């Protein structure tokens, strides 16, 4: 190109980042048995992992569990264009939710900003052979060559996983869909965008019921948006939604068709001592999850995770500091937009441990019984396969131990936003940009 021999080498590292942008994982979800794990990415693809079943009896004694291997990959959503507003519609998968299994096939819902799709995942491992009218390649036989009749038989073949779209729920949302949640009735599900929540029937794609609408008559009066929503795990008439002002609203669909009026509102009064211009932003709830028991709610705001009792509206019953050391950095985090990062939170199977993500590839787990938290890291270079995870620490004062990380050396581009916990066992899936980490609890820690 240029003749200038002294021109600096072109730095191609940005190209690498660009290429893998589409691989950034945007959602992770186990199915109800935990045998399947689905991930969605920014490029609109869904990858399903399946847990290998353990044939060996001895492996159980060693405490080994099956590994997850790729089961199927498919393109769920494509980039789209809204011609009316001249804006692109991202194909990024915002959420995946599995339906409870009813037959041999698996069903999952995946959504981008605008459209929800129901996918059927089925296996084919047999094929009929011995047709009378078709030959092995499927060509029609010449009838004169057929001398005898036979019954076609099913022969085993290589496993083939077929994924087909069964329903497409389009045009239901003007704003960006942030949550979907399958109802315990097995027939309906809700989808929530910034201002509205719709309820759909899984079999009906051309109609949905609007159950919450917080859009003001005048958009200029808008001060609050919906950030997450979920159905109650057992009561099909209850759902909860969180807002950017840090409130949770529990709604009962039996009360009225439009649930703008909440049954209960969960709100913690603001701490006047900690008030700043960023108070509202950091109080915005980024994720809300019912406990498996259905009695508690787990919420994540920028600096904390909170456990709420459905019976007590005036405040959370437990509050855990995720990264309190960031409180003095809020202005910088506002400047680089990190303050708007939406972290998810999850319960373990027994509702005794809660987990959420942080920066620098760290994620935090809190034991509700002891109240103690631990910091772990999802980073390839510091953990070999089957190695025991070390706990990490962010240095915030006092005695500095080896391995402590200073607050100023945290990498804010390495954020753990999405994660999932196996419904029955202590297996967790952590998404770290374009990498998926699966960690399993070992009964015998000696085995590495």
């Amino acid at each position, binding site marked *: 190109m240029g003749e200038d021999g002294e021109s600096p080498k072109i730095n191609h590292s940005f190209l690498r980042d660009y290429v893998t942008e589409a691989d950034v994982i945007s959602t992770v979800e186990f199915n109800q048995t935990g045998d399947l794990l689905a991930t969605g990415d920014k490029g609109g693809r869904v990858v399903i992992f399946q847990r290998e079943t353990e044939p060996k009896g001895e492996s159980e004694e060693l405490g080994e569990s099956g590994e997850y291997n790729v089961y199927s990959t498919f393109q769920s959503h494509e980039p789209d264009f809204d011609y009316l507003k001249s804006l692109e519609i991202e194909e990024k998968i915002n959420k995946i939710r599995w339906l409870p299994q009813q037959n041999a096939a698996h069903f999952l819902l995946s959504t981008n900003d605008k459209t929800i799709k129901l996918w059927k995942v089925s296996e084919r491992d047999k094929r009929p052979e011995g047709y009378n009218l078709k030959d092995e390649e499927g060509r029609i036989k010449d009838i004169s060559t057929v001398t005898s009749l036979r019954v076609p038989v099913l022969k085993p073949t290589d496993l083939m996983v077929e994924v087909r779209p069964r329903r497409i729920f389009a045009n239901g949302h003007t704003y960006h869909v942030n949550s979907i949640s399958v109802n315990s009735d097995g027939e309906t599900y809700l989808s929530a965008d910034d201002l509205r929540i719709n309820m759909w029937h899984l079999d009906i794609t051309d109609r949905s019921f609007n159950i919450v609408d917080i859009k003001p008559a005048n958009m200029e009066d808008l001060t609050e948006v919906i950030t997450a929503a979920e159905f109650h795990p057992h009561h099909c008439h209850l759902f909860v939604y969180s807002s950017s002002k840090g409130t949770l609203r529990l709604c009962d669909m039996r009360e009225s068709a439009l649930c703008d009026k909440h049954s209960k509102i969960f709100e913690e009064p603001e701490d006047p001592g900690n008030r700043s211009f960023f108070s509202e932003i950091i109080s915005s709830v980024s994720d809300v999850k019912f406990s498996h028991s259905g009695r508690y709610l787990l919420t994540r705001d920028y600096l904390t995770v909170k456990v709420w009792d459905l019976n007590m509206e005036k405040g959370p019953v437990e509050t855990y500091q995720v990264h309190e050391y960031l409180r003095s950095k809020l202005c910088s985090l506002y400047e*680089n937009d990190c303050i708007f990062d939406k972290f998810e939170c999850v319960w373990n199977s027994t509702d005794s441990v809660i987990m959420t993500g942080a920066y620098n590839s760290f994620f935090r787990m809190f034991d509700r019984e002891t109240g103690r938290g631990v910091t772990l890291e999802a980073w390839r270079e510091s953990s070999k396969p089957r190695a025991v995870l070390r706990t990490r620490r962010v240095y915030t004062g006092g005695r500095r131990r080896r391995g402590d990380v200073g607050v100023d050396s945290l990498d804010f581009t390495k954020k753990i936003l999405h994660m999932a916990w196996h419904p029955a066992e202590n297996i967790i899936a952590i998404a770290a940009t374009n990498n998926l980490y699966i960690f399993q609890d070992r009964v015998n820690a000696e085995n590495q």
Partner: protein
Amino acid sequence: MFSKGTKRKFSDGDEDLSDESLVGARVASSYSLQRQSLLDMSLIKLQLCHMLVEPNLCRSVLIANTVRQIQEEMTHDGSWHMVTEAFCGTGQSPSERLVATEVLCRSREQDAEPKLFSVISYEGCREEEVVADETLCSVSVSDTVSNVCLAGRMGQCWEKSELSGVERDEEALEDSREDEEVDTEDGASTEGPKTIGQVFGTFEIKNGSPGPDSALEELFSDVDTSYYDLDTMLTGMQSAPKMGPYDLLDSLAPSHSSPSIVSTPNCRSDLNELDHIMEIIVGS
């Protein structure tokens, strides 16, 4: 983040201060500077939404609420009062001066956008290094205001002007890349200054007129529906000369620029030069 030299309190004049109150004044002005910086940052964030994809509504709402919060506090402080006082002509009633964004002599509702930014940037321009030529500014204001006032006035003067890009810094005008600059300005204009109303308005196709007069209504001005006209977007022509991001950046004092934006041109502009060019364009 802020210039070190400015230690004046906004509300107090230049009376002699005792040591104690001097410290207090410094703390107060430091807070004011921080607050101003936050306000500038927030406005830029609202403006610079990437308009290929719809901006994140949650983020926009949170930033808008922050802006509103700062504005309310400034109103209580009296800082806002000084701003509005500077821009309102003598003919306006005192109560209007305290109205948050009802500033600048209004000729058209579409000028609501430049109002907000001009007002905000007033605070930023209240720096010693800003030189303003009072004679060119037809509004009787104190010296520190005129630069911003001028930007706003120009916006109103050139109603039909397609070359709204001329509002900008004379450095850009003198540059041989003037055409490119104008195109950029047009390009930026299509993105538009992202006032609250416009940010939320991208999600709607609205034809409504702005609501009844109120401080916050003006802050969240109505959407210019010509924005959605594909032709308008493509050609970058709009009925009202919008104050694009560059104008706001112009108005911000250099010391208040956030690192993420390109270094802002100095507030100081050769007003004679601009005036001359304006005459040529208007054809007077």
